[in-house]
C-alpha cells in the first residue's frame, strides 16, 4: 500500500488538521514508512480469531440515576478560550 498526496490531504481533512503543500510531501513519506512497518501484520492468518478490544473482559457498570457532580461551570469555563453568559463561543455555524 502507498499513500498518495491526495490520500494525505483527505486524512488531514478527516483529522481536522490543516496541512500546507510542503507538509503534504513530508507526511506522505513518513506515513508510508510507518505503514511499511504496519503491513507486516497482513502476513498473519487470523481466520477464526476473535478481535481483542481490551485487556480485561469488562462489562459496563451501572449506577443509580442520581446527581453525583456539583455544578462547577465557572471553574471549568475559566479555562475556555471564549465564553459569554455561561456559553462557549464559536464562529457562527448556522446562517
Amino acid at each position, binding site marked *: 500500500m502507498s*499513500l498518495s498526496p491526495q490520500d494525505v490531504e483527505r*486524512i488531514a481533512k*478527516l483529522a481536522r488538521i*490543516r496541512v500546507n503543500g510542503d507538509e503534504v510531501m513530508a507526511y506522505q513519506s513518513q506515513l508510508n*514508512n*510507518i505503514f511499511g512497518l504496519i503491513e507486516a501484520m497482513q502476513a498473519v492468518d487470523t481466520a477464526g480469531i476473535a*478481535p481483542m478490544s481490551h485487556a480485561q473482559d469488562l462489562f459496563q457498570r451501572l449506577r443509580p440515576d442520581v446527581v453525583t457532580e456539583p455544578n462547577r461551570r465557572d471553574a*471549568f469555563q475559566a479555562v475556555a478560550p471564549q465564553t459569554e453568559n455561561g456559553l462557549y463561543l464559536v464562529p457562527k455555524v448556522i446562517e
Partner: protein
Amino acid sequence: MNKTIKQLSALLSAGKASSVELCQDYLAHIQTQNATLNAFISVDNDKTLAEARAADALRTSGQAGLLTGVPIAHKDIFCAEGWLTTCGSKILSNFVSPYDAHVIEQFKAAGMPCLGKTNMDEFAMGSSNETSFYGPVRNPWDTTRVPGGSSGGSAACVAARMAPAATGTDTGGSIRQPAALCGITGLKPTYGIVSRYGMIAFASSLDQGGPMAQTAEDCGLLLNVMAGFDTRDSTCLERPKEDYTRSLNQPLAGLKIGLPREFFGPGLVGDTAKAVEEAISQLIKLGAETVEVGLPNSGLSVAAYYVLAPAEASSNLSRFDGVRYGYRTPEYGDLTDMYEKTRAEGFGSEVKRRIMIGAYVLSHGYYDAYYIQAQKLRRLIANDFTTAFQQCDVILSPTAPSTAFKLGEKTADPVEMYLSDIYTIAVNLAGLPGMSLPCGFDAQGLPIGMQLIGNYFDEARMLGVAHQYQLATDWHARAPQGI
C-alpha cells in the same frame, strides 16, 4: 539526596527531618539542576511548601501515614488542581487544571507534597522526550543523550535525585524504557488497577499510570498509594485492596523465570546482552530456575500497536478543538477553519502523524484490514503470554534494545524511534504488569535495564523478585557523577 522514600519515611517518623526541610532541599536541587536537564515543566515552591507544612501538621497531630511528608514529582499528564497541566503540548500550554486526577487525589490523601510537574513527550507519544513542546529532557548520565520517553522528565528527575520518586504513565513502554535509560526502577501495573481519571488520554485501552523510584521496594510502597477502585474510570477494576510489598522478603528458591527466545535473538547484542545474562546468573544464584518460553507473535506487537494506539489517539485527541479549553488559533474564519488551524498550530508533528494514521485505519474501507486485524493480533499476542505463564512465574527480558542514544539520533525516522519499544509493547497489548530495574552499565557508563513481566495482578511477586535482586546488587543505588 540519595535517600529512598523508605529511608525518608524513617527520617520523618523519627523526627530527624520535617517535610518542609526535605522539600526545601529538593527544590534547591531542582533549582540548580533543572536548567541543564529540563526535567520539570512547572515548579511552584509556594505550593509545594504549603503542602509540606500541612504534612508536618498532620505528623504533629499524630495523623501521619507511612509516606506523609515524603515529596513526589508528577508527570505533566496528570491533572492537578491549580497546576499548569500541559501534557507536553502547546495545545494545553495555558491549561491550569480545575480538578485533580484520581492518582493526584490518592497522593494528596497520603500527605505527599508535589515537587512539580515533569516534562514528557507530547501526549506521551515518543520514546526520547524530544517531542515535548517544552524542549527535550537531557539524560543525567550524559547530557548529550536522551532520557527515553515518554516519562523522560520523571525518569531524569529521579536519576538526578531532584525527587525521590515520580509518577509516570505507560502505553507502550513509557515508564519502563526511560527507567532503563536513566538507571532507575519503574513499574507499569496490570491494566485497570490504577484509575485513569484525570490522566490525559492517549490510547485508553493501553494507558496505565505507575510509580518510578530508585528501588522496587519504593515502587511497591507507591503502588499501595496509587492503586484503588474509582468509579469515574469505567475500566478501573473493583478489587480488594492489597499490599504490594507483601512478598518483598520471599526467597527466590524454586521461582521459575521464563526467558522468551524471541527476546534473546540476534537483535540483542553487546553490553545489554551481557548485563542481562549476568542478571540471570545472579537470580539463579539466589535460587531461581530458568525455563525457555515462546512468544511467537510478539514480533508483530510493534505493527499492531501502531494501528491500535493511533486509532484510539485519533478519537481521544478530537477533544482538543479550541472550544472548551487550551489553545485557540488567533485568526480564523468559520468553525472548520478554526478547528483545522488550532490543531495544526497546537499539535507537534509526531502527534499529527499519529492522529492521521488513526483517522486512516478507522476510515471506511480500511477498518477491517487494519484495525480489526490488529485487534486479532492483539489476542494472539495475549494468548502467547497465557501459554508462557503456564510454564513460569515471571518473565525476564531486556527492557530496551540499546542504552540511551544521542539527542537527535532517531528524530528523522519515526519507525526507528518506534523500535525502541520492541520489548515493552507486547506487555501493554496483553494488559500485563511489567517493570524495569537497573542491571548494569555499558562501556560508556550508561545504565542498562532489565524487564520483568508478571502475570495479571501478580505485581507483588514481581516486586519481590526485583527486591531480592536489589538486595544482592547495587546497580540501582548508583547515581550519575556530579549529582
